[in-house]
Each structure stands twice: as structure tokens, then as C-alpha cells.
């Protein structure tokens, strides 16, 4: 077999993978513009499912709640995560390695376990289900991502710049504000976008922690799917996937996640 042939075969394989990854999403989006309720073809273009969405108060409420929760998560996780990253980068101290390892469980343990554990604990302390519990859970899931992304950016930062500023008489807060933060700002923005995506797309933890009738968008979609499919779900799902992909494209611009720069 010649190298050219193999290279062509490889590119074909890659094309197949991309088709596999995107075709179902495309079909879903396509069907959300089809007038037929039972996904029947021929295709008859219609916006009626999107119009129906706007009139569905339950979905509008859940969407609003999801965005608010994601924004709250983003703000809290970005501030706490950036502070922790700066400390982990700037100082050497005992137990640092342990603290870095502690970021692993929220990412590595299946959300089913984390979610049910949170449910038990929040009930045990009297907080119960509801939006505050959901936010507490989302922030915990988003924090490790923020710390990893911001730390990756900090790793490219020349620590002697901080020393230079300090030797010129800047106090610690001024150094942070004028030297460190501007340098890592792109990492912080990427971290914030990651945090938003983690929260906005989170289903499992929200599912166990949100109050019935007071749920986030993915939870509402899950309960609707189990009752039966409607093109209305296609429409809202299409909107969700466009939003989350757009957020991640922005995040990719601001971080070198996967890139080779």
C-alpha cells in the first residue's frame, strides 16, 4: 500500500468521524424546522415549533433559570478558582501537591455518585432541593476546570515580572492587579466560559438537586423526552446546542486548549 493511499484513507476516516459526530445534531436541527409533528418527510419548512416555544411558559422559565444559574456559577467559580490558581502558582508550601490532587475527584467521579451524595448531604443539613443547592453543586464541578485552565495560562507567566514590580515598590495587591491579572486575563476569560458551559450543560447534578416544577432546561427536557418526543424539544435542543457550541468556540479562542500555540 502506498503512503498516498493510506493518507487518503485516513482523511476519509476522519471525514466519517466528523459525519458521525455532527449528523445526528444536524438531523435534530433540521427536524425542528419541519412542520410535521411526527417527523414525517417530505420536509415542510415551518417556524411553528419555535413560535410554540416562546409561548411555553414552563420552558421559558426553565431557560431563564438555567442562564441565571450558569451566570452565578461563572462569577463564583471564576473568582474562587482564579484566586486559588494564583496561590498555587505563586507560593511554595506544604500540602500543595495534595491540594492539586483534590481537584481530581469532582472531575473523575461519575456525576451520578456526586449528585446523589449532594442530594443526601443537602437534605441532611436542611437545605434540601432547589436553586441554591444546584448553584453550590455547579460551582464545585466548575472550579477544577477554572483552576486547570487558569493555571495553564499562569504556567506561561514569567514570575520575575512580579519580582521586578515588587522591587520597584509595588505592594502585593498592586502586583496582582497591574502585572499578574492582565497577563492571565485570557486564561481567566476561557476559565469563565468553561464554567458557564459546565453549568449550562449540566444535567445529572441538576436532575438530583432541582425541585420538581422548578427545574433547569436539561432536566425539563429529560422529563419531557420520557413522556414522548415532540418537535418542540427539537427546537429548544437546537437552541441549547448552538449556545453551548458558541460558548466553547469562544473559550477555544481564549485558551490554547488543544491548540499548539
Amino acid at each position, binding site marked *: 500500500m502506498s503512503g498516498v493511499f493510506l*493518507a487518503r484513507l*485516513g482523511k476519509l*476516516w476522519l471525514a466519517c*468521524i466528523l459525519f458521525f459526530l455532527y449528523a445526528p445534531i444536524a438531523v435534530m436541527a433540521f427536524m425542528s424546522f419541519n412542520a410535521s409533528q411526527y417527523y414525517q418527510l417530505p420536509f415542510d419548512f415551518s417556524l411553528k415549533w419555535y413560535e410554540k416555544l416562546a409561548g411555553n411558559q414552563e420552558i421559558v422559565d426553565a431557560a431563564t433559570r438555567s442562564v441565571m444559574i450558569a451566570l452565578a456559577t461563572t462569577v463564583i467559580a471564576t473568582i*474562587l478558582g482564579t484566586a486559588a490558581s494564583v496561590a498555587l502558582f505563586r507560593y511554595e508550601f506544604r500540602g500543595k501537591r495534595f491540594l492539586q490532587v483534590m481537584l481530581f475527584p469532582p472531575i*473523575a467521579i461519575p456525576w451520578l455518585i456526586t449528585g446523589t451524595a449532594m442530594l443526601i448531604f443537602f437534605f441532611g443539613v436542611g437545605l434540601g432541593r432547589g436553586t441554591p443547592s444546584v448553584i453550590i453543586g455547579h460551582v464545585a464541578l466548575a*472550579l477544577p476546570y477554572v483552576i486547570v485552565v487558569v493555571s495553564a495560562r499562569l504556567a506561561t507567566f514569567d514570575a520575575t515580572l512580579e519580582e521586578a514590580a515588587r522591587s520597584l515598590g509595588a505592594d502585593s495587591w498592586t502586583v496582582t492587579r497591574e502585572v499578574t491579572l492582565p497577563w492571565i486575563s485570557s486564561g481567566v476569560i476561557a476559565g469563565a466560559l468553561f464554567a458557564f458551559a459546565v453549568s449550562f450543560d449540566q444535567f445529572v447534578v441538576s436532575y438530583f438537586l432541582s425541585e420538581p416544577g422548578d427545574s433547569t432546561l436539561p432536566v425539563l427536557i429529560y422529563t419531557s423526552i420520557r413522556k414522548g418526543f415532540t418537535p418542540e424539544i427539537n427546537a429548544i435542543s437546537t437552541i441549547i446546542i448552538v449556545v453551548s457550541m458558541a460558548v466553547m468556540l469562544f473559550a477555544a479562542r481564549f485558551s490554547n486548549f488543544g491548540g499548539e500555540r
Partner: protein
Amino acid sequence: MSANLANQERLRIFGLLSPAYLWLTVAIFLPLSAMLYFSFLSDVPFGDADWHHTTKNYQAFFQTKTYATLLWKSIRLGLTVTAVAVLVGFPCAYVLAKTIKGRSREALFLLVILPFWSNSLVRIFSWAIVLRGNGVLELGLNAILPFQVDVNLMFSTPAVVIGLVHSYLPYVILTSYLALQAIDDNLIDAARSMGANKLTILWRVILPLSLPGLLAGAVLIFVPVVGSFMEPRILGGRVGTYYGTVIEDQFVAVFNWPLGAALSFILLAVVLLILAIASPVLKRAQT
């Protein structure tokens, strides 16, 4: 003076780190401990429920075969999905890392991992529309093939596997790509100049060097698949009863939280065991 400075620094470290780690403690580590405690109770200790300490929840796992069978079913599902994802994803990562050059590589790589960062529930739902009887897959196949076929994969094990591979494939592509990219092309050229054929190069050079990345990807897929419940529910229907769906039921349908906690904890033990076995490999993959 210097002791004062050291104190100040300690205070600063504490001030910067404690909010994040307190949050993780309250939201992750205390709940996990609470779950362990709960798994040894006979009933929820809320209201006026009558409860005492017991090991009957764990006995339920070991005495009836139901739960162990389902756990094994979930582990098998995890192995299947991981194997398919590795076989499909590794060649793809190789093409990205070694065949495609320049700016298009970055764009293609982003395209491959982008779905991974979008909503998993929505992606599973999109497969439901494709796979259902009289769905797009059937219409498409009948349009191409000269004979009529009935394809209704919905509510079957293959549907669950397809959905899960779709969900987690980007993981193995991501980790394999990073490992493959780190392989020096000169090494491959050297092997070739010494007369090694393509298969030998793959087997003796490329695979051993990219193995840590490949295994890291496999672990990252296997662990969440064993704990999956939403995907089997939506795509598996009646055959979609797995260990994860049984845990879900304990919390949202049957309300036997102590049993659910015990089952969750057994799953956690399995997961931790796998992570512990894989940790030397995962550490190598990081560097």
C-alpha cells in the same frame, strides 16, 4: 521581622485558597462522607422516621444477585463502549496528529472535540430521532439500497452503545492526539530508514509511545459509562436497565436513599479501584 513576613504570607495563601477549597469540601467531600454514613442506615434520619445502624444495604447487594448482575452489565457496557471508542478514535487521532498539517489541523481538531463540550443530553436525544423506526436512518438507507430494510435500533443495546460512543469518543481522540503529537517525527523516519515497514513502526514505535495517552482516554471513557443512567434510559427503553438506572430509581422513584447510597458507594469503590490501577499510567500521560 521575618517571622512576621512568613505569617503574612501564610495568611495570604490561606486567604486565596480557602474559599475554593472550602467550597469543594462542602459540595463534594462532605457529601461523599455523608453518603457513606447514610449507606449504613436502615431509613432516612429525617422527620420522625424510625432508623438504626445496619449493614443490610450492603447485604442486599451481596445476597441478591440482581445488583451484582446489573453492575457486571454496566461494566461490560463500559468495556464495549471503551473498546469501540478506542478502535474508532485512535486512527482518527493519528490522522489528525501525523497526516494533516498546518492550520487546517487546528480547525479539524476543534471540530472533533467541540461536540464533547456541548450538551450531552441533547446529543443523546438527537440519536433518538435518528435511530427510531421510520426514522432518518431507515429512510436514508432505503433511499440508497435497492431493497427495503427495516431498521429500528431504538430501545436496544446497540442504540445505547452508539449514543455513549458518540458522547465520549472525543475524550480518547483528545488524549491520543496529545500523545501522538509529542512523538518526534525523526524517530519514525529513523525506524523507516532502518528498514522497518509500516506495521512494525506502528507496533514497535507509535503504539508504545502513545499508549499512556490512549489508556488515559480509555479510563476517562470507562468510568463515566459505568455510572451512566440517562443514556440507557433514553436510548435503551426496556433493555436499558443498568446499575446506574437502579441507583437513579432509589433516589427519584423508590425513595430508598440508604440502599441508593450503598449502591452508589459500591460503584465509587469500583471506580476508585480502576483509577488506582490506572494512576501510574495517568501520571505518565500528564507529562
